[in-house]
């Protein structure tokens, strides 16, 4: 498992059936900053979405990059990507940077 700022990444076995292919290499956008957690070399990656979660298929080693966080190098494989959460008395919500 890896933590890239407020985004978590863990190896998983498969992309769920019914997932939809995303047309870019972005894993998560910041709500205000416009920054993004993204694949450095999108040609080596497929990003899939399924029920609000993102899945990443890497066909070769590449890095996950962001304007502020140090890169993380990931090898070929399938990964689940999700955001941290924050508590509030009203609702538990994803944490946005």
């Amino acid at each position, binding site marked *: *498992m*890896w*933590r*890239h*700022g*407020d985004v*978590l990444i863990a190896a998983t076995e498969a992309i769920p059936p019914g997932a939809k292919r995303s047309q870019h290499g972005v894993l998560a956008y*910041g*709500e*205000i*900053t*416009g*920054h993004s957690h993204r694949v450095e070399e999108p040609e080596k990656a497929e990003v899939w979405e399924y029920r609000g979660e993102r899945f990443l298929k890497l066909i070769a080693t590449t890095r996950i990059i962001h*304007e*502020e*966080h*140090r*890169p*993380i190098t990931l090898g070929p494989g399938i990964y689940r990507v*999700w955001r*941290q*959460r*924050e*508590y*509030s*008395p009203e609702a538990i919500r994803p*944490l*946005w*940077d």
Partner: protein
Amino acid sequence: METPTLEAIEARKLLLSGQAPAHLRVNGDLDLSHEVSLTVLPEGLNVGRLVLDHCPALKALPAGLHCISLSACGTPLTELPDDLHVTSRLDLSDCKLLTHVPKGFAVDTLILRGCTALEELPEQMHVFVLDMSGCINVQRFPTSGPEQMARLNAQGCTRLTALPSWLKRVGQLDVSGCARLHELPEGLHVVTWLDLAHTPLRQLPASLQGVSLRWRGVAVNERIVFHPETITTQQVLEERNVERRRVLLERLGYERFLAETQARVLHRDRDAGGERRLLYVPLQNDEPLVCLEVRCPSTGRRYLIRVPPTMRQCHQAAAWIAGFDNPEHYRPLVET
């Protein structure tokens, strides 16, 4: 003499063998990054996109080099040839030995991020986007340059004392961390946003009144920037967005926040960002506020993230934030 033209794959072999002829034209793009043996390229090389990142022995570019984009990040280049022709984008990030860019240099996007030996920018440069962030030895701009730019990023130019008077209009302007920049020029217009975090700026010239402000990338207003004493702890607690809350906290003063909310430390330990603390703040007519105070391992910034009031240990809270109700399931290998 006919100009030789080669496909990228053949050209690559030839270039790495050191046998490439002058005025070689390459069909397609060339990625020669991390080639430790690459010391020289032929004169007059003409290629679409050329990547030379982290070639540790490449100390100079050839005369007459033509390309659409050139990336030579982290190379030991000390200067650029006067006749270098790059149309779209030149990225020289972390060229720590670079000291000279030719007069009148023209390219759409020029990236000089982290060129720490660079003291002077070129006179009469023609650029639309200039990223000079981390150029800690640039003290002043040249005497002439473009009147308009799409983006100027001077983040962390700690010796810079003034922006150029020739620049009249810029889309996005980042001067955050310019610790010696005490004023911005009258007559400068910023179209989209101005980031002025961690500068000694205390007011804006008339031409910048009403501009959208940012604090390290986060949208803020003039009150947060210029009158932080008016921020209240209640405002911080009520702010939903974690980045804006971070800015409010930073401007309010972390110690003031903790003192005014009478936070109690429930637990402390360390993670990749340093010490972290689980803080407990009783709230009137409400369940208590329990926050994990952490530092980002990359930026060192402090964050307060609210967790369920039942949390008692830092790791338990960090695991909950990561989505794990059982703290034993949360074991990150790398945190950045």
